[in-house]
């Protein structure tokens, strides 16, 4: 009688199902144990947390005993790396959950979306003035940033060589890093010189947002324009098409989807900016449809304002702040979804 031949490929290895069994076992032990100890009123989060920690340790020890030190370290790192991802998702889920929980009621109460805060003390009122302000200020900022940013990208990709192009590339990088509040202060200083002390308007807000938005537009458009194959340009030149028409009729249409996506993402980045608008656009409780004169409310400033200076009945102000936050997140989410859809359906398919 000879011993059965061992499979050398799997010898000394834990079976694949071992990990999952162990995880289920750890979770089960802790959750049920907790349930029994607390008499049916368990602390679910704590139990799951302890179960996961126990799994990580046991998994390491088990692998150390069966598979050796190197495999054990590998398993430990796998657990840690996965945990890092979960740790990042927790605040996101927590934040979205609280915003929905506290904001949804006020958001849907009927007055929030169709009235301003004029003469409102305590209950009622809404953010219509802030929504209008945000849309106008961001729209104007887009009108300023897109032509400048896109033309700069075209310059860098199609024309730029030598010192000027290198200088512009460097400065775009520097501009990306300007803190938003500094952009606000610089715009304030500019408008003080142009229009005198203490002038606040939606236009000034748009200018400060443009300072933040232009570098983002340049960067994303530049990346996309670089992806346009040179053969397309050469084919166009060979047919005798002038360079500017080649850019307008060949290069831009080819990269249109990518550029649109970049612009959408740039908008969603600046639409939530609070600090510069606080400095240059001020705040108000009334409707103001004219971005060229008078103070203009915007959604982020609305949220901040409701949070920082609640009146005697603080609860209503905080509720409005949450509803404003929910509105802002919905707008940003919508822009992101549109950007993804545009890029999914219209961009040329690339490998990897």
């Amino acid at each position: 009688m000879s011993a059965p031949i061992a499979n050398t490929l799997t010898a000394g290895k834990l079976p694949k199902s071992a990990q999952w069994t162990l995880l289920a076992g750890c979770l089960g032990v802790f959750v049920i144990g907790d349930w029994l100890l607390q008499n049916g009123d368990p602390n679910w989060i704590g139990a799951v947390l302890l179960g996961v920690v126990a799994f990580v340790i046991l998994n390491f020890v088990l692998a150390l005993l069966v598979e050796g030190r190197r495999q054990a370290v590998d398993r430990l790192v796998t657990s840690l790396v996965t945990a890092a991802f979960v740790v990042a998702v927790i605040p996101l889920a927590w934040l979205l959950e609280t915003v929905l929980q506290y904001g949804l009621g006020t958001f849907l109460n009927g007055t929030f979306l169709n009235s301003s805060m004029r003469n409102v003390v305590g209950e009622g009122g809404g953010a219509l003035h802030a929504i209008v302000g945000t849309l106008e200020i961001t729209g104007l900022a887009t009108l300023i940033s897109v032509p400048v940013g896109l033309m700069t990208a075209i310059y860098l990709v199609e024309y730029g060589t030598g010192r000027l192009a290198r200088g512009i590339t460097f400065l775009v990088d520097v501009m990306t890093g300007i803190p938003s509040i500094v952009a606000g202060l610089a715009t304030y200083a500019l408008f003080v010189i142009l229009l005198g002390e203490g002038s606040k308007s939606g236009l000034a807000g748009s200018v400060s947002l443009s300072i933040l938005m232009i570098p983002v537009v340049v960067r994303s458009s530049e990346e996309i324009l670089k992806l346009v194959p040179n053969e397309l340009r050469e084919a166009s030149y060979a047919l005798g098409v002038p360079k500017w028409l080649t850019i307008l009729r060949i290069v831009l249409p080819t990269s249109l989807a990518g550029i649109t996506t970049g612009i959408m993402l740039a908008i969603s980045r600046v639409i939530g900016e609070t600090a510069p608008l606080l400095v240059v656009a001020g705040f108000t409780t009334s409707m103001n449809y004219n971005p060229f004169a008078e103070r203009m409310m915007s959604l982020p400033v609305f949220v901040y304002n409701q949070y920082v200076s609640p009146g005697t009945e603080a609860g209503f102000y905080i509720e409005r702040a949450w509803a404003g936050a929910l509105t802002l997140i919905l707008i940003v989410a919508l822009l992101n979804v549109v950007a993804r859809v545009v890029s999914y359906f219209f961009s040329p398919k690339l490998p990897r």
Partner: protein
Amino acid sequence: MTTAPARIRAKQRPADRIFRGSATLAGGLILIILAAVAIFLIAQSIPAFVVDPAEIKGSPDSFWTFVGPLVFGTVWAAALALVMAVPIAVGIALFISHYAPRRLAQSLGYVVDLLAAVPSVVFGLWGGRVLAPAIQPLYDWLVTHLGWIPLFAPPVSGTGRTILTVAIVLAVMILPIITALCREVFLQTPLLHEEAALALGATRWEMIRIAVLPFGRSGIVSAAMLGLGRALGETMAVAMVLSPAAVITFVLTSSQNPSTIASNIALNYPEAHGIGVNVLIATGLILFVITFLVNSIARWVVNRRKDFSGAN
């Protein structure tokens, strides 16, 4: 004797010149905007440097004793955020690039990108109303049991609005940018290096340690620097979470916290007038210089890397 054929020049049409001119103009506008930002900031902050310090809010000995705690708070909060964010971001980037199932990887990356889409004012609201009260018991515990460590010296803050809470919120906010950059760098690791490591019998972690991390080291550094730049300039989250005081202290859990430049501007700007505005703009200029330095170093590291990246 042959002469070189004359070089044929493309015909210059007026439209060509106009288009080229406007593209160059737009590029030049970037130079002008940045110069304008610097010039206006400097022009508006000169009064603050020469003013009698007694006129500054809180009557400090000089402008610099006014700015000192703010600069300290800015750097301290950002550094804490960075210490928390970088290991987690590297972990997430590795998870998405090398651990997660291929089919899921892209959507998981999108989930992390979602964090970047949340406006900072919402993070501030969440940090101040939800996170601070929720985390206060932990601070209580830390101060009671670990109070002998200088970082957790008593008394404990009763509201949880400490610089540690701020740093946690900042860490969450800079996670996506660091993760995105690290992920890009890790994905660029030459496949041959990875396969060679695996072929020599390395486990997955050993492969990452000897092939992926050395290749991505400068990428991680520059991503961290860019995250640092973001954290230094963050305004609303700090302004809405922190309960500030003009102090320099390393204590993480007390109610006396150093404020940051940006949040100080946001909190005091609405009521400031006259020279007060100039003082705030001068602190803004200092913030600009700090972030400029940090970002320049980051870019320098990135550009240096370009020379020896790729499969060499």
